[in-house]
């Protein structure tokens, strides 16, 4: 033991290291941070602010812990939350196809995100180099997650590891195309879904997510001092719910209705699975909304409360309207109202107070209820599981209501440095924000609708969109996946 410790090689190594570190010290001679600087950095950690000279490049354990928890919660929303919510609503012959679509999207989007998705959304090299692409996309500096390590990327969060931030944002990229599955369930073939989602992510999601959340995003009113549309979207009303909902409507129209639509019984096969999925979605949504503060701070705490209140009020309002108009408060009504409340509060969660959340819950219980029960019946489109009725209608309403109810009282960033420079702060105080929100909503709808038309017809012309009629009759589970959901 002693022999190895004092062997000539160990001694040589020790001297070598000492020489190298002596050399480094002599070259840079960094002054150790003063006590004052170290205290300032610690205060910054507590206040989720810039650490200054000390503690740079170090993630804050509390903020990091909450963001890792939040990332897991948002993944939990898709697997199994949304998978069960949708899986219960289809007929038993198609339950596995929905699970396969959610799982397949999780894998596919992760690969896209690693390769270029994250870089396209959260990079900024296109803007910095003056490229035209900078209007729509981030940059190339993070391709293959190059350089995305555990030190924080202070463009987005002072105390959250860059890799945790990248994984957290990836969970949003996974659930968004999975929401579209609801509209085209029970008839679109698996290969077509994968092809559609790949193109949809590249041409619709990545640009939208960049414009709304990227540091150089043109619709990022809160954080980009140069934003041309001074809009706000806390957790993804436009990026997640409007984009998926409007695209879902267009895709289900191009795809056509299920065989037997409005003639045969297409009732949900398990309201039990649907309710379990709803509970998972609700719990997971705390990661989605409160996590969108990108810190375990006061804004996150406010978002936690508004999310709870809006979901509960929505979950109560929808079935009460059913009870009044149709005689029964249904389980699907409770579930739909809860999801509706969560969708509508999403863009607003960190910008409105609790009274705003109650109002949002009431609207979320009533307006999507009308869209799903009346509008759909009049227009006769086969949005199988109401992705449009809940996510597009709820998301669009949420984006607008956020513009009317947002207040700097709950989120000081609305009047922060970037918001003051680009004019958002003035709009929040004088009430003009709703018009900027309308611009963002218009851009989102135009991009989603036109993009989906192009992508859907491209996939239709190449590999085709629909499963063969006999496959659709037999059920997608057996024909496309070689398995059955239930063996009796």
């Amino acid at each position, binding site marked *: 033991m002693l022999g190895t410790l004092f062997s000539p090689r160990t001694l040589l190594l020790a001297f070598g290291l000492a020489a190298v570190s002596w050399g480094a010290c002599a070259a840079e001679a960094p002054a150790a941070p003063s006590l004052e600087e170290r205290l300032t950095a610690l205060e910054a950690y507590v206040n989720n602010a810039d650490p200054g000279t000390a503690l740079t490049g170090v993630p804050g354990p509390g903020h990091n812990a909450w963001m890792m928890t939040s990332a897991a919660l948002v993944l939990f929303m898709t697997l199994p939350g949304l998978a069960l919510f949708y899986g219960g*609503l289809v007929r038993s012959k198609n339950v596995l196809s929905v699970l396969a679509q959610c799982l397949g999207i999780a894998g596919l989007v992760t690969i896209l995100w690693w390769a270029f998705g994250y870089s396209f959304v959260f990079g900024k090299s296109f803007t910095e180099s003056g490229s035209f692409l900078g209007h729509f996309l981030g940059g190339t500096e993070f391709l293959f997650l190059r350089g995305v390590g555990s030190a924080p990327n202070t463009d987005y969060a002072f105390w959250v590891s860059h890799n945790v931030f990248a994984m957290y944002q990836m969970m949003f990229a996974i659930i968004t195309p999975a929401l579209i599955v609801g509209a085209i369930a029970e008839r679109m073939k698996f290969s077509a879904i994968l092809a559609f989602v790949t193109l949809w992510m590249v041409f619709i999601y990545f640009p939208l997510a960049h414009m709304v959340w990227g540091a150089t995003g043109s619709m990022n009113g809160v954080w980009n001092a140069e934003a041309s549309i001074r809009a706000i979207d806390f957790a993804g009303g436009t990026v997640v719910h409007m984009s998926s909902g409007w695209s879902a409507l267009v895709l289900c129209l191009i795809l056509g209705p299920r065989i037997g639509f409005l003639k045969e*019984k297409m*009732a*949900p096969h398990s309201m039990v699975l649907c309710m379990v999925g709803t509970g998972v979605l609700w719990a997971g949504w705390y990661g989605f909304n409160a996590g969108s503060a990108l810190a375990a701070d006061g804004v996150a705490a406010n978002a936690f409360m508004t999310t709870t209140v809006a979901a509960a009020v929505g979950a109560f309002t929808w079935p009460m309207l059913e009870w009044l108009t149709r005689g*029964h408060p249904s389980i*699907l009504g409770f579930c*739909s109202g809860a999801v509706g409340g969560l969708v509508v509060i999403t863009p607003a969660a960190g910008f409105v107070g609790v009274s705003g959340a109650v109002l949002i819950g009431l609207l979320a219980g009533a307006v999507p209820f009308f869209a799903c029960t009346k509008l*759909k019946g009049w227009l006769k489109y086969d949005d199988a599981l109401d992705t449009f009725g809940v996510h597009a209608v709820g998301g669009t309403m949420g984006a607008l209501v956020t513009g009317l109810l947002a207040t700097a009282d709950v989120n000081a960033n609305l009047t922060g440095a970037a918001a003051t420079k680009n004019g958002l702060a003035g709009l929040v105080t004088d009430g003009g924000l709703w018009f900027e929100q309308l611009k963002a909503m218009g851009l989102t709808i135009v991009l989603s609708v036109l993009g989906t038309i192009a992508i859907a017809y491209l996939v239709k012309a190449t590999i085709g969109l629909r499963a063969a009629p006999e496959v659709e009759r037999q059920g997608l589970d057996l024909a496309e996946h070689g398995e059955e959901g239930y063996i009796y």
Partner: protein
Amino acid sequence: MKLIIAIIKPFKIEEVKDALAAIGIEGMTVTEVKGFGRQKGHTEIYRGSEYTVDFLPKVKVEIAVADALAGKVIDVIVGAAKTGKIGDGKIFVLPLEDVVRIRTDEHGDAAL
């Protein structure tokens, strides 16, 4: 011998079984079935979609008995299964040509 087929409300099966056991009936076959009569079906609503469900769940009880017992068995089933509301079900009585106990190869009344 008679074969008695009774279609009854599912929640009445325990009462019917106990009442039949009380008069010495030692065997029956029970099946979960679906069907409709004058009661017709019901309506289910899922968000905007309304579906009429024609077939309602019922329980079918099959009992083979000696001719002399048939009338009493029918009375007992009616007594136990009746609620007085629409959908109580029906009893069908058929002549039964033969019965075989597979274990012993007995035929007729001896096999009941």
